[in-house]
């Protein structure tokens, strides 16, 4: 009598599909739930790593939808420093499912953002997008107008997309007493920390799961055919406010986010998961896809992930002279992802 394992294919077994293979021969890591073609309109949001997906989609002539266009004439390097073409619109990093729900609520009119502004010199920073521009806004009015533009563009992204890619980044989060969530702790890249106003929360599985489920459900009220593709950022935490060792905090955070994604994928037909986290962190890779700081994913790692992504969907048209692994530019050049959370390393006090 056969047991169930005898019927499984090779990919179900660690030794032949991971341990005995070169990491570069890994196969069948992802079977997409839904069809992705060159004409499929894809929007990307979330943690830093989501930036690589949008960029790779664009470079390979897939339909990466950008709903907040940069002004004409702005050179590419400045586009990124002003938060254009980083995600599909200028939300900045959305690290948590709860913050995603906050953006969804704003864009669908469930809630209006609190008119909070962080005064910096004679300018103003947006607490919800503190590094969206290199310099502070000139006035509160300008900041609000800019945020409103991003909120409107976020709604357009939901309305017009076929696939909404969301990269889950953190469980650690900062909130104010009004219930609003910030991407960065006040007092780090802007604003001032007030212990009576601001508090830390390491969000639990249930809350994250519910927030992500609600966010996706709300999005589908204005676009019922919208599909969701989740990923988990493979980038470790820069710092943890949880009280745990940052290594333990990282594992906790990523594990919870991975579990949230897994739970939703197994219960919702319209939600899929792409294993970028696993591809970078697999033991067989021995950490080779990290920069020397053991945190940032290097070019080869980004290419490795994106090659797996594109290998699993219908072949794209590569631009003349372009190899599959050319998607992120020349190797050896440090990643240029815009990542607010990295700024926390400045507070390590020389440790």
């Amino acid at each position, binding site marked *: 009598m056969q047991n169930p394992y005898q019927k499984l294919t090779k990919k179900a077994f660690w030794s032949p599909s991971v341990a005995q293979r070169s990491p570069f021969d890994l196969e069948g890591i992802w079977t997409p739930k839904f069809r992705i073609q060159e004409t499929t309109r894809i929007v990307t949001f979330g943690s830093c790593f989501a930036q690589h997906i949008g960029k790779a989609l664009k470079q390979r002539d897939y339909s990466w939808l950008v709903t907040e266009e940069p*002004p004409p004439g702005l050179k590419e390097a*400045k586009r990124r420093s002003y938060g254009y073409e980083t995600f599909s619109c200028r939300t900045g990093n959305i690290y948590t499912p709860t913050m995603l729900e906050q953006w969804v609520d704003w864009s669908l009119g469930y809630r209006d953002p609190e008119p909070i502004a962080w005064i910096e010199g004679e300018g103003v920073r947006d607490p919800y997008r503190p590094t969206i521009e*290199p310099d502070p806004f000139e006035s509160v009015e300008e900041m609000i107008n800019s945020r409103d533009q991003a909120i409107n563009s976020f709604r357009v992204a939901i309305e017009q997309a076929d696939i909404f890619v969301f990269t889950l980044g953190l469980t650690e989060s900062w909130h104010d007493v009004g219930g609003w969530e910030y991407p960065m702790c006040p007092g780090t890249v802007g604003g001032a920390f007030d212990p009576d106003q601001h508090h830390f929360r390491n969000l639990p599985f249930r809350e994250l799961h519910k927030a992500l489920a609600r966010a996706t459900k709300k999005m589908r009220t204005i676009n019922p055919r919208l599909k969701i593709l989740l990923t988990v950022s493979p980038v470790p935490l820069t710092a943890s406010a949880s009280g745990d060792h940052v290594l333990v905090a990282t594992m906790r955070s990523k594990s919870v986010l991975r579990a949230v994604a897994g739970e939703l994928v197994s219960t919702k037909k319209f939600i899929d998961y792409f294993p970028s986290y696993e591809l970078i962190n697999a033991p067989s890779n021995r950490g080779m896809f990290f920069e020397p700081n053991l945190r940032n994913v290097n070019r080869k790692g980004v290419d490795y992930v994106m090659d797996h992504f594109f290998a699993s969907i219908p072949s794209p048209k590569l631009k003349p002279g372009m190899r599959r692994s050319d998607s992120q530019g020349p190797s050896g050049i440090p990643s240029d992802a815009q990542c607010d959370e990295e700024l926390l390393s400045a507070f390590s006090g020389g440790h």
Partner: protein
Amino acid sequence: MRKVAIVGNSHVAALKSAYMTLGSDRMGKLSLTFFASRGKKLASLERRGNNLVPGERKLAEALRFTSGRDENIDCSKYDCIVLYGLGLKLRRWPGCYYSTSVVQAALSDGFASSTAANLAGKLSNIGGVRVVVVPDPLPADDIASESAVQAFREARFRLSTWLKKIHGLDFLCQPEATLGPGFNTASRLAVGSQRLAIGRENDGEPHPQGDIYHMNDEFGRIMLDQLRVELSQIT
């Protein structure tokens, strides 16, 4: 008479051709001298005192040919220098809100990439000479169906305001009467455009059929009238 030097690239062809046809009387109290060369060659002009001096022989020949006498541009001889075309683009702004900072950055990047910016920098601090910049004509691709006059006015306002505020440059661009149905030049104004004459065999040859970037004599006439009116007002 006010003396005006028109310094530009291939787009000067339409202007100069119209000027030669119409005669100098058409310009009223303006006396025009053209200094033109094709492509981006004018970027190699070097500042020496009050002069812009060609850094290479072919450019010197083109300037001597187009001006009819001089290969050096002695700026002290002119009341006004018009930087014509030279890769400066009037760009349509999407219907998004932009912060002041990013507007400035975009206009700065757009201007910096043009030969007009290169020459404007070399012309700075020459006393008594006004510098006026005129962008390339909008392409004559009549694919748009909706009127874009408002978008044109917005683009003109943004660029002209910024150039004056940041660089002290006056700005002048094609009149609305030259626009097509969208953010473009009317296609009839690109029919029959010719290469800039610089003393070469292919002088005056028609641009390839379907060229939407270079304009014809009719456009040149309209721009001359525009220059006459606007430059008379710039003191």
